[in-house]
């Protein structure tokens, strides 16, 4: 019985690790300046935990394999008692924690704790059940004020603007997909009109909840031209699964073209 258990555990461990090593299912190719940092952190963690995973499962298997009942046998005790193991765990795991935290907090800070580049492109993001809307300030570079009571999904006034009295609002460009120039820092202001939503682009390696009542800042720089999916990752109602949009990364000139045509 013990041998069987050992074999099963080893097989399970190897198969599980195999799919990881073979990258059968893996993170999509990164497209943002901060992604390499995150992926580095990710691989570092994967190596450590992978090693621990295999080693501990194998150790378990080995011990089980060698431990069977026998009238004559006396049970062996772990040489040196528990404390060396305690020390081992504290040192091994402790060191790794230190390094990971040290590197990781830099990465984290780069994404969430540094102010956006001053000349980055401003985009205002409004999330709602179950869609994203994006707003560019237009030529005057100013956003019109938002009036919740004026919000009408029917006539596409997702931001509750009133162009009559509000000059800044008149030239605001409102679109359904987030279009940004490549290699240019973009700074988003996320706000939601109803539930908590979330802004998630796997390729950017960025996720940020959009909390009603707050203006949550988020900034990134896309480095690869293409079209990527923006999905909502915070349960926001029955349409949660269908709430998505696209991130269009264009070369600067094409982007300017696009902005004119809006």
């Amino acid at each position: 019985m013990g041998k069987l258990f050992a074999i099963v555990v080893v097989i399970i461990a190897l198969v599980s690790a195999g799919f990881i090593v073979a990258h059968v299912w893996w993170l999509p190719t990164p497209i943002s300046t901060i992604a390499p940092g995150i992926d580095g952190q990710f691989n570092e963690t994967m190596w450590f935990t992978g090693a621990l995973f295999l080693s501990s499962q194998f150790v378990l298997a080995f011990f089980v394999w060698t431990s069977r009942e026998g009238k004559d046998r006396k049970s062996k005790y772990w040489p040196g008692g528990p404390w060396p193991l305690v020390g081992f765990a504290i040192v091994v795991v402790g060191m790794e924690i230190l390094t990971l935290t040290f590197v990781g907090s830099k990465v984290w800070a780069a994404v969430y704790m540094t102010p956006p580049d001053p000349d980055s492109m401003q985009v205002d993001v409004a999330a709602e059940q179950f869609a994203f809307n994006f707003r560019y300030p237009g030529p005057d570079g100013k956003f019109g004020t938002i009036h919740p009571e004026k919000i009408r999904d029917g006539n596409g006034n997702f931001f509750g603007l009133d162009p009559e009295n509000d000059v800044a609002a008149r030239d605001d460009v409102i679109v359904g997909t987030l279009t940004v120039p490549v290699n240019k820092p973009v700074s988003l202001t996320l706000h939601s009109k109803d539930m908590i939503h979330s802004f998630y682009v796997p390729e950017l390696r960025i996720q940020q909840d959009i909390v009603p009542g707050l203006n949550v800042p988020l900034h990134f720089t896309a480095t690869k031209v293409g079209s990527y999916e923006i999905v909502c990752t915070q349960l926001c109602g029955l349409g949660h699964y269908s709430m998505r949009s696209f991130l269009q990364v264009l070369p600067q000139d094409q982007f300017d073209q696009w902005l004119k045509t809006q």
Partner: protein
Amino acid sequence: MSTPDPTIHQHAAPTGFIRKHVFSLDHKVIGRQYYDLALVAVFLGLLLSWLMRIHLGWMNAPIPLLGKLFPSGAPGNVMTPDLYLSLMTMHATIMVFFVLTTAPFAAFGNYVLPIQVGAEDMAFPHFNMMSFWVTFLAFLVLISSFFVGDGPPLAGWTSYAPLSSVGAVAGPGQGTGQTLWAVSIAIFCIGQLLGSLNFITTTLDLRTKGMSLARLPLSTWAWFVTSVIGLLAFAVLLPACVLLILDRTAGTSFFGPTGLVVNDTVLPYSGGSPLLWQHLFWFFGHPEVYIAILPGFGIISTVLPAFARKRLLGHQVMIGCMVSIGFLSYMVWGHHMFVSGMNPFSALMFSVPTLIITIPATIAVLMWLGTVYGARMRYTTASLFCLGFISVFITGGLSGFFLAQPSLDTYLHATYFVVAHFHFVMAIAAMFGIFAGTHFWFPKMYGRMMNETLGKWHFWLTFLGVYCVFMPMHYLGLAGNVRRYAAFTDNYLVPLIPLHKFITMAALFVGATQFIFFFNFFWSRFRGPKAPDNPWDATTLEWSTTSPPPFDNFGGRHLVVHHGPELYGVEGAANDYVMQVSPEQVDAR
């Protein structure tokens, strides 16, 4: 304060059926009642997870009879997205609260703890009875949400505001259903608070002569630590739920910010903060997950030595691990909120203790491994589940290592990676703890033996099955598969559907194998061979009395404890193990 005077806590054996089996004050009956409640709950949760899995594998396949059960939720037997979310919410709520808090903690704790410390009953038998019936009421309230309005809530077991706080406008099930959810959980908190209070007092005050704290079995230690955590954690969830109910019914706006707009109308909330709910919920929520696993720690640490026929490596160390995990569990709740819009600085503040908590966990694992080393292992179902526990807990815990780092959580949060993580530690590790405990204590609880052959089959199939179900979820998470999705329509998710199909089939398989357990359980309970007093040659007090124990546990005897709990494989002893109560002198190794 009309509690019975605890110092005269032994009450006469009841006679009437009601007092004997329904409103009983006997901790053994209450323990069994809790266990049966957990069984009903887990059965329900299992069926729900089946429905969920089928839907995730085959989005618009009709499920027979579903339309009958949920006329609005499943027109033409095809599950609607909102029904999916409702089932998911109920699945999680039932499993976390009514299975994982009741079975390992309330059920086994109630039954075994007083006997293990050598008491005739709990310190406050009346509170104990109330604790169960309150919990039972909470369960009924939760279940009733299936039958009211437009069905159960769909806000997930975390019920994030404002989705959970603005009422019916938020979507189907968010009307009466969500209110019932909040009420149910509030009631549940009261029940568990009573229970924790009872456990702590019993452990401290009702220990029989010689049962010093150092001689308490680790299972009792685990239940003790767990109840301390519970006493402080549920005390926070209770007001949180009350505030949620107020937000929904009395028009307060604790969690409702200014200017919520749902279908073009501005809602009357103002000044609240959705993050406040998340803080209050997770302040309870993280300790809760350790409430779920610590009894497992204790059970493994008690059962494993009994079958390894040797002392646990580092008895005191294990106590230390459990206590420090208990402490740390209050410093880490923010790791669920890394990307929630919380102050990014706090994220770092929460990340460090979260990573540190893996150290005591690692030590615990190493202690178990060290116990298995060179053991004369007796391979019974119980011991197999102990070994399985070690394996799955390692797997599940290590994925926590990723999530604990904000810089990785920005990618992995709310993906199936998280789902995989907590199913491994909670749905499997904790469950294995329950299974080990069941097979170990069944003879004591019901006076009959369980069938080993069926038990072993159940173990092997479950062990293989759950890895097939939940290991692939890690891969889904790596590919960025978002959780709580009723369908996978995004271009980058469609290629993953085959993997989902595989998971579904595995889940159906695992679920089916659970029926082996159910059958074994009920068959043995009534037909199984009579159990001897000490079938496992175990040493703790519950094995020094008859199976099942008499009403006052020890037939009027006042036991005197002479030894620690794990004297197995003792050289020079009469029969290689020494009961805690046996007066025989042995050199402690």
